[in-house]
């Protein structure tokens, strides 16, 4: 809703009745357009958005069409109904501008008291129609009063926050031009006055031009653009002009009053030619080229331009052709660029072909270009001017307009071609002109005599790569050198820039070779007009003597193919027959030693061997080393006695438990004695434990076990007095302590 209100406020369309219906185009939405159509159909009184104002124009100010409609007051209808929107002059500012812009010399129109009059038919309205419309208008006025309060608030908000405010701050610019700027006699051109940055009312006082008939009923258009968040408003008044004779008509500079300020309208010219002469200077060939002097063999980056005046259209029948054998030229393609340029103060559309020229001869050389085109009439061009998809070369080269076939000539293009200067020219110079860089690389640099070396030389830059040949260098005494392979990689479409790569194969003849010699290269720099030497540095080599089997072989003269000397074999007659059975299938015919499975299988005999050796060596040690054997057997015996003690404890057999416990202690300590463990007494065990610094508790427990065993066995103690479950834990702890002794 806000948007809609904004639009209609910014661009109120105007309908004019009594002077022929004319509308002021502007920015509006489709709804507004529809309502305007209602107005045109005479439904104004039923449209609440239609308000009629009466505008009284002085008789002297009324233009031609107004005069035909009759003198007297004229009624204009404006969509906005509120007089609050009127400017100081009593009319909406846009309306004033529109009204004044379409009048030849309006001065300041005088608006009478607003009334609600019906839209008149040509020649006026009847009394009945007037009354009916007046009633409806009063009813509408009542409704308008209700809406007005709401709108007043909205308008205040819009004027406060909308970018319209910034329009007034824009700088007002005035321009004037003819469209098209050149026509043939009998055609029309539009004189366009464009006011940018202001939507104030303005008055016109256009000068008259002799021989140029100007229709003073302008067509006014208005455009609103948003650029970087700022609104740009422009109003264009277009006056149809019709020349009465050929020649150049100039509308001189004149003044226009906008919002009370006077601005200067620049002069504008219109060229009128006789029919058939309209294509003069319409098509121009030009060659954009480097300045003289140029040199023989130099590649010249040029642009071939075909200028087409903006008011005509052409169709190319052929690509531009070069005339002149003193130059070679790169191929012209359909891939040209387009631009727009002013030439001799006229706008031209330009087709640009990039082209490379190479002078072949010295001296004053002339080059010309020509192309066959079909030139279409300007009217067809004008018809397309407002096409949404109109672009500079949309149709000139691709439409099939009927027109006149013409050949466009460039005229003589003169070159001052010079030979390259002899002064300072290196002896190895081979014709390179431009700007280059050189790099080289050799691989390998450590090798035996007779092995090949790949030497890569890269020349990059911009210039005449077609004349950059493989540099020759003197290495025949040390190397066998073969003709290099060359490859050019362009980096632009014309092949003027890029990298040229030369790949040499060198074979050192002997181990005495220590380096690859310098490769000479120089070029003529077109910027400094001097020769630049870019010879490479020598590359050090390490050449080892060739072994006997790979002695350097230098070729004899190539022998002829030998196949022709030998009669065709006829072996098939005596072949043994094929086999009818496939035999055993082999998935992998490769050598077994490359098989991972085979290599992994070698671990099996290794493991077997190590196992056999380990077992055998242990057995032999057990046989030979008694202490080792005792240690091994003591461990087993201790575990066995402990098991017996546990079983006895579980059975409540105290005698059996303590006997087994004593035997376990004896076995555990006995591995440190040469004698049999069974013969160890407590005294010996006590002595041993004392020598090892055993704790008193261990000694006491040992003593108690031995004493208990003796008491049961020899003293007749009752077995029931011992808590064997506790003793099992004591014994296990004791054994662990004893086993830990070294």
């Amino acid at each position, binding site marked *: 809703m806000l948007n809609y209100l904004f639009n209609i406020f910014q661009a109120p369309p105007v309908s004019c009745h009594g002077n022929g219906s004319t509308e002021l185009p502007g920015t509006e939405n489709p709804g507004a357009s529809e309502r305007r159509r209602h107005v045109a159909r005479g439904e104004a009184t039923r449209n609440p958005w239609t308000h009629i104002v009466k505008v009284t124009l002085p008789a002297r100010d009324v233009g031609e069409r107004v005069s035909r409609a009759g003198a007297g007051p004229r009624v204009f209808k404006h969509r906005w109904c509120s007089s609050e929107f009127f400017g100081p002059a009593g009319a909406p500012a846009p309306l004033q501008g529109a009204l004044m812009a379409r009048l030849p010399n309006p001065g300041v129109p005088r608006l009478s008291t607003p009334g609600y009059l019906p839209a008149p038919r040509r020649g006026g309205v009847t009394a009945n129609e007037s009354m009916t419309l007046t009633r409806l208008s009063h009813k509408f006025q009542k409704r308008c009063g209700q809406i007005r309060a709401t709108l007043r608030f909205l308008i205040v908000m819009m004027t406060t926050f909308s970018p319209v405010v910034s329009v007034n701050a824009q700088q007002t610019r005035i321009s004037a031009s003819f469209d098209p700027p050149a026509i043939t006699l009998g055609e029309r051109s539009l004189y366009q006055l464009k006011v940018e940055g202001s939507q104030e009312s303005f008055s016109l006082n256009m000068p008259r031009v002799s021989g140029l008939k100007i229709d003073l009923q302008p067509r006014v258009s208005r455009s609103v653009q948003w650029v970087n968040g700022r609104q740009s408003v422009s109003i264009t008044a277009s006056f149809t002009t019709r020349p009465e004779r050929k020649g150049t008509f100039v509308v001189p500079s004149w003044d226009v009053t906008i919002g009370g300020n006077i601005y200067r309208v620049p002069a504008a010219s219109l060229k009128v030619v006789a029919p058939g002469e309209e294509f003069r200077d319409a098509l121009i060939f030009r060659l954009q080229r480097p300045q003289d002097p140029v040199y023989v063999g130099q590649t010249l980056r040029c642009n071939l331009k075909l200028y087409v005046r903006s008011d005509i259209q052409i169709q190319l029948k052929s690509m531009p052709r070069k005339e002149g054998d003193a130059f070679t030229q790169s191929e012209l393609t359909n891939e040209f660029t387009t631009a727009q340029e002013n030439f001799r103060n006229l706008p031209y559309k330009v087709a640009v072909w990039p082209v490379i020229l190479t002078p072949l001869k010295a001296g004053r050389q002339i080059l010309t270009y020509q192309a066959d085109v079909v030139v279409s009439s300007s009217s067809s061009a004008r018809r397309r001017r407002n096409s949404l998809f109109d672009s500079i070369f949309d149709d000139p080269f691709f439409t099939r307009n009927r027109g006149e076939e013409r050949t466009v000539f460039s005229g003589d293009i003169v070159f001052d071609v010079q030979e390259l200067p002899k002064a300072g020219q290196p002896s190895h110079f081979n014709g390179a002109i431009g700007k280059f860089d050189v790099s080289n690389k050799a691989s390998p640099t450590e090798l035996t005599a007779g092995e090949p070396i790949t030497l890569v030389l890269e020349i990059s830059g911009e210039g005449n790569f077609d004349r950059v040949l493989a540099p020759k260098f003197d290495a025949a005494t040390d190397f066998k050198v073969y003709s290099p392979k060359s490859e050019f990689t362009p980096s632009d479409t014309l092949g003027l820039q890029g990298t040229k790569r030369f790949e040499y*194969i060198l074979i050192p003849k002997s181990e005495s070779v220590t380096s690859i010699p310098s490769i000479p290269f120089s070029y003529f720099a077109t910027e400094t007009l001097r020769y630049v030497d870019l010879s490479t540095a020598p590359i050090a080599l390490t050449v080892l003597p060739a072994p006997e089997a790979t002695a350097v072989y230098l070729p004899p003269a190539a022998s002829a193919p030998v*196949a022709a000397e030998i009669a065709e074999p006829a072996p098939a007659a005596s072949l043994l027959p094929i086999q009818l059975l496939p035999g055993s299938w082999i998935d992998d015919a490769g050598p077994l030693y490359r098989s991972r499975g085979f290599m992994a299988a070698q671990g099996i005999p290794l493991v077997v061997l190590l196992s056999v050796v380990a077992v055998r060596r242990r057995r032999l040690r057990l046989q030979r080393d008694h202490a080792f054997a005792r240690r091994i057997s003591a461990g087993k015996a201790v575990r066995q006695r402990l098991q017996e003690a546990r079983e006895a404890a579980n059975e409540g057999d105290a005698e059996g438990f303590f006997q087994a416990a004593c035997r376990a202690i004896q076995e555990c300590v006995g591995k440190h004695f040469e004698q049999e463990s069974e013969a160890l007494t407590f005294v010996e065990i006590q002595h041993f434990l004392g020598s090892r610094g055993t704790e008193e508790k261990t000694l006491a427990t040992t003593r108690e076990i031995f004493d208990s065993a003796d008491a049961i066995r020899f003293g007749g103690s009752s077995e029931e007095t011992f808590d064997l479950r506790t003793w099992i834990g004591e014994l296990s702890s004791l054994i662990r302590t004893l086993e830990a002794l070294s």
Partner: protein
Amino acid sequence: MRVAPAVLVFRLAILVCAFAPGSPSGAASGPVSLFNQANHAYSLGDYEEAATLYRQCLEAAQSVAVHYNLANTYTKLSRIGEAVLHFEKALVLEPAHAEAQANLTFIREASGLTAKESDMVQEVAHQLTLNAWCWVATFGIWGSIFLLLLPPLFGGGSLLSRVILLLSLLAIPVSIAAVLIYHKESRKIVILRDDTALRVAPSSESPPNAYILAGEIASIRTTHNEYFFVSADTGDTGWITEGEFGRIW
């Protein structure tokens, strides 16, 4: 109908054998079918079709017979280079394959190819396949190690163990020498096209040093980029590219 248990067991055994993994009839049924089709085409004189089928067969699995038959087919097609190549491949898989040896000798003589004489060491090496020599070397090495390390732990070896140790020790150098000969021969190639140019340098710009016939044997000595420096049995040397020869191994 009642079937005896022995017959049932026999039938079950046949089924197990037929579908056992790795059995030739099961795993190589595709190659077998192709082989039979190729033989049929060969018998009808359609050698191009036979060669195509044999090649498809080789893509699935190899056998001496396939290489041999394919070589015969190429001989019929007068493609001597490929014929020699596949006879050589057959002989790699089975050095004692008499038919392959005979046909290879025949086409070499008929085509005027160089037949390099084998020395005694090579003759010995070719008595077994490369993989057989690998096994001999393996048993020789481990046998020697076992017989050197274990008898001292068991109170000295018997006469038999000493003889076996001697044989094992003898097998090691012989088998390794044979493997090395095969390894050297693995660099052998067969020239595939007639008048193949042996270039002086590894460059297309290089002049030819010599031209050799298809079917000639050469050895790769070194490489440089896409070029191979070869030494032919004819005594010629030069650089050739990958597509001009076939590798035996």
